[in-house]
């Protein structure tokens, strides 16, 4: 890229090409399994439902298709009591895993 290129705005035709290449790559990859996100949501919710009652309406699913990776986001609203219960259960489970393996354990969760 020339020094001038840094200051120049990318022209719209190039943006169009990049956008199309990205979305078409995703569409071709998704074409075999169009309901993947739906299925993932159901299965993840099923796992959470083992521990806490989640209202399906209070689940926000976001997806951002990127160049190398896509990001699937699940924002799950946990009722106040349920979150505490989940924490206790999770803590117990993690302690159990840690005791068994004596190794590292990690967890992450998001509650809105």
């Amino acid at each position, binding site marked *: 890229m020339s020094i001038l290129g840094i200051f120049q705005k990318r022209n*719209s*035709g190039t*943006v*169009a090409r990049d*956008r199309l290449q*990205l*979305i078409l790559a*995703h*569409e071709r990859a*998704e*074409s075999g399994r*169009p309901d993947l*996100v*739906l299925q993932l949501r159901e299965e993840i919710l099923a796992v959470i439902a083992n521990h806490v009652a989640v209202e*399906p*309406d209070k*689940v*926000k*699913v*976001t*997806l*951002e*298709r*990127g160049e190398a990776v896509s990001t699937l986001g699940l924002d799950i609203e946990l009722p106040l009591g349920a979150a505490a219960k989940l924490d206790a259960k999770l803590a117990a489970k993690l302690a159990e895993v840690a005791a068994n393996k004596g190794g590292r354990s990690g967890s992450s969760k998001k509650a809105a």
Partner: protein
Amino acid sequence: MAKVLVVTSGKGGVGKTTTTAALGAALAQGGQSVCVVDFDVGLRNLDLIMGAERRVVYDLINVVNGDAKLPQALIKDKRVDTLHLLPASQTRDKDALTDAGVARVMEELREKFDWVICDSPAGIERGAQLAMHHADIAVVVTNPEVSSVRDSDRIIGLLDSKTAKAEKGEEMEKHLILTRYDPSRADRGDMLKTEDVLDILSIPLLAIIPESQEVLRASNLGCPVTLNNPLCAPARAYADAARRLKGEEVPMSLPVERKSFLDKLFMRRAA
């Protein structure tokens, strides 16, 4: 309670999706809450024109089938917070849309927004008829070109017979947007005149959108033309159309591209 507007044309490629995005963005910028709905099942493109293609999770068919609730499927615009998109499905076909399911979703949209703008697929088949069925107002998009005008005439016939309003014996409010209008060709007499098109279709004019490279540029970038460059001629024409839809009196004029001082300078040098 929303006004439901269908953007339709019969013929493909005349600017329905561009018009849907531009009007939706212009109304939303004016502070109204707006949802643009893609009815082109199997060939969705409104998401691309709105620049939301990377964020589509659920679509109209998911909502109709109950796989997702309406709020979960709506994609909020990143530029204007009162603007939302309900995308069409890319993988299924229009037969997955049931009449009752669409009616239920439209009712829910009506309660949530000030404006619901339905982008119709081309043609006069079921998809186009579903898109127009629940509309209160129709915007017919036409190019000043014989096949487009004829197809618009067919669509006007359907608007007056196959919609919920028509079935109730009510009159559907219809407006014409003339797109890709080229003033220099019109001056030379090489294009259907606006008056001729209006005379043939006999529906009132909502706007004349001049042919402009700004429309292609906006679609390349995935930004409604009214947001991408609000001062360009087509954006001003769409913004006026949005104000007319809200009931404002806006004198009809053909916006022309304003040349900047530098443009003029370089034009002269190049010539």
